[in-house]
């Protein structure tokens, strides 16, 4: 009896959902439903668009935004999506690109690499977007790369990464290794810290980054005392910390990604190790992550990026102010958010210069384009589609902000294959 009534209820739900689905199907024909398919914020972008097959038909042009809005990476990627939407909104307010309003199609990569590839394909071949802004982990970029190359799409990737890549269909607006990791190791060595303990999450970015660091240390008189990897999402660092205490390094170079950083720094402090005892340099902790870890655990530790919320440029003051207005006074801005924001502006500038939304023309026009970004002037390098960026080493303060200790003095030319460094020969094979 109990079972019977349950079954009836289930049948009712199924029937109801079928009816609803039927109604939805009718409604879909009139509106651009893919734009609203994944998440609410897509409504922030642009106007009511008529459904169209081509990216630039009518008064709007579609662009894709593809980040993890759910799953383990959403902690970081949601904020980049926000800054990209803000850039789109700003450009639309100024009249759009080539007189067309930009309409964002927001998709969720769900922290799952095959999903990134699948959604990228959907954006390019079904929504016919002019370009896509998206990705965070290298795994997601590697998953999307063949899709964009096959369909001749265009991807703007906004996060620092391990280098050794230069796809003709991707623009890299985050730092490559010689704009973040290599100078930060030089910085450490100049401070007289020779013994380096490498700690990273177990996937492509930390392993490749550490390969480069080891070669650099060997060439410049440093020493790699240990190299440890933990699975993504690892939450117990007591043993790693015991190993660090045993190895007595001068500095821990931290390429952990995501939530593991929280566990590592909390447990490091509990074990009685402070930034005064042990220098750490992190490359995946920005203002947003500091907020989630708790600044009291991180004060005094070092990070390497190209941009901080405190970076002193007129463009940054406006950027921070607008971002707080848009997403609340508690919100912070960080390097990948700035890179995502910059990417949208660079794309718009390239389109204006090309006078077209066609991928090949935009790529050609993008060469040498300059933009006064919040981090300072950036220029697209025509040879490898990376951008010139200023390198900055910062120290985390107890209020959660990061203060610059050192910078490279000016934008550094991107060199993803490290061809200008003698010690890096043979790394790219």
């Amino acid at each position, binding site marked *: 009896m109990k079972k019977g009534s349950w079954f009836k209820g289930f049948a009712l739900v199924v029937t109801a959902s079928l009816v609803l689905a039927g109604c939805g199907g009718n409604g879909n024909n009139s509106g651009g439903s893919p734009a609203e398919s994944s998440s609410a914020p897509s409504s922030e972008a642009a106007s009511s668009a008529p459904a169209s097959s081509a990216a630039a038909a009518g008064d709007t042009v579609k662009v894709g935004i593809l980040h993890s809005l759910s799953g383990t990476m959403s902690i970081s990627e949601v904020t980049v999506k926000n800054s990209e939407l803000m850039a789109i909104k700003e450009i639309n307010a100024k009249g759009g690109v080539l007189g067309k309003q930009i309409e964002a199609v927001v998709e969720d990569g769900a922290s799952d690499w095959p999903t990134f590839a699948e959604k990228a394909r959907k954006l390019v071949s079904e929504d016919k977007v002019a370009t896509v802004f998206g990705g965070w982990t290298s795994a997601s970029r590697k998953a999307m790369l063949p899709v964009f190359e096959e369909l001749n799409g265009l991807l703007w990737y906004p996060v620092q990464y391990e280098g050794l890549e230069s796809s003709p269909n991707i623009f890299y607006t985050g730092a490559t290794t010689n704009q973040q990791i290599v100078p930060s190791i030089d910085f450490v060595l100049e401070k007289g810290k020779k013994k380096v303990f490498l700690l990273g999450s177990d996937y492509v970015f930390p392993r490749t980054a550490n390969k480069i660091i080891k070669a650099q240390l060997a060439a410049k008189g440093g020493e790699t005392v240990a190299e440890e990897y933990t699975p993504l999402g690892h939450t117990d660092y*007591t043993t790693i910390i015991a190993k660090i205490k045993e190895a007595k390094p001068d500095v821990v170079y931290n390429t952990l990604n995501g939530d593991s950083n929280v566990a590592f720094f909390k447990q490091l402090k509990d074990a009685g190790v402070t930034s005064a005892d042990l220098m750490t340099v992190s490359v995946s902790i920005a203002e947003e992550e500091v907020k989630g870890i708790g600044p009291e655990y991180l004060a005094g530790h070092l990070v390497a990026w190209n941009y901080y919320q405190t970076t002193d440029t007129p463009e940054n003051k406006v950027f921070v102010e607008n971002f707080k207005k848009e997403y609340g006074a508690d919100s912070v801005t960080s390097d990948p958010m700035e890179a995502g924001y910059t990417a949208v502006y660079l794309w718009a500038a390239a389109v204006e210069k090309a006078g077209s939304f066609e991928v090949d023309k935009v790529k050609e026009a993008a060469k040498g384009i300059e933009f006064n970004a919040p981090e300072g002037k950036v220029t697209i390098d025509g040879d490898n589609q990376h951008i010139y960026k200023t390198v900055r080493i910062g120290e985390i303060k107890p209020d959660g902000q990061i203060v610059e200790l050192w910078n490279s003095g000016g934008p550094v030319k991107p060199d993803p294959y490290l061809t200008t460094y003698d010690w890096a020969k043979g790394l790219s094979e």
Partner: protein
Amino acid sequence: MEIWITQLFNGLSVSSILLLIALGLAITFGLMRVINMAHGEFIMIGAYGAYMTQQIFKSAFPASFFDAYFPVAILASFALAFAIGYLLEVSLIRFLYDRPLDSLLATWGVGLMLQQLARSIFGAPNVAVASPSWLNDGLTLMPGVVFPYKRLFIIALVALCLIAMYLYIYRSNAGRRMRAVMQNRDMAACLGISTRRVDAFTFAIGSGIAGVAGCALTLIGPIGPSIGTYYIVDAFMIVVLGGVGKLVGTVAGALGIGVFNTLFEWWTDASLGKVLVFLCIVAFLQWKPMGMFAVRTRSLDQS
């Protein structure tokens, strides 16, 4: 020498954390046989319970009271997870008792929904929970050997939870009714026990203990919508290894996995250490498929 003491303590500490994670599941899965994939999300609920308590204390009470928030947070986390667990049992789980595979899918779906709910309420980024100042620092045993107070506190909390659970399950009337229902549902019903109420209550208690675990984990780990996924595999592994349905098995399973994980990680690295632990578990379950402490009862033969 120091390193051995440190590692021994670390092993014990990891075991205590694993046990805390698994205790709730030992009830919902171990006793009730619900393949509860939403267990991790109850841990997450507990963690956010601690966060909310902290925010309330920050805004409503003077700063000098702030350190008192943590004991309150433990109770609040338990209550919150208990309430949501109760709701879930009444609205969904009770329809699925004789369909274990459906319960797996349904609770997994519920887990995803809870994650997304947390993401909508609190935002996708992690939130920070400040630990009370009386838990900072640690006990220095000798130079180079520090036992952090937080870890000692978690060990004590686990012991307390274990004792409370033991008293409840084996020494109270409610616990006796619970065991009766789990061992022989029809007989218990014949004797006038409201099995439905016992089911709901038992599931809620399991969820509540997961909430306590989540609250304690804010001391040492991240607090975000997806933290449940980090702990769920370990929790199932412990309950299965220890022997489904036996509390003492869960304790032994947690101790075994914690100590071996720490040792293997020390000798090799984190990834390989975990692989070796899994290999050992697989080998052990080949030898003893029912786990370390098998329940001998005829009621199990039915399923």
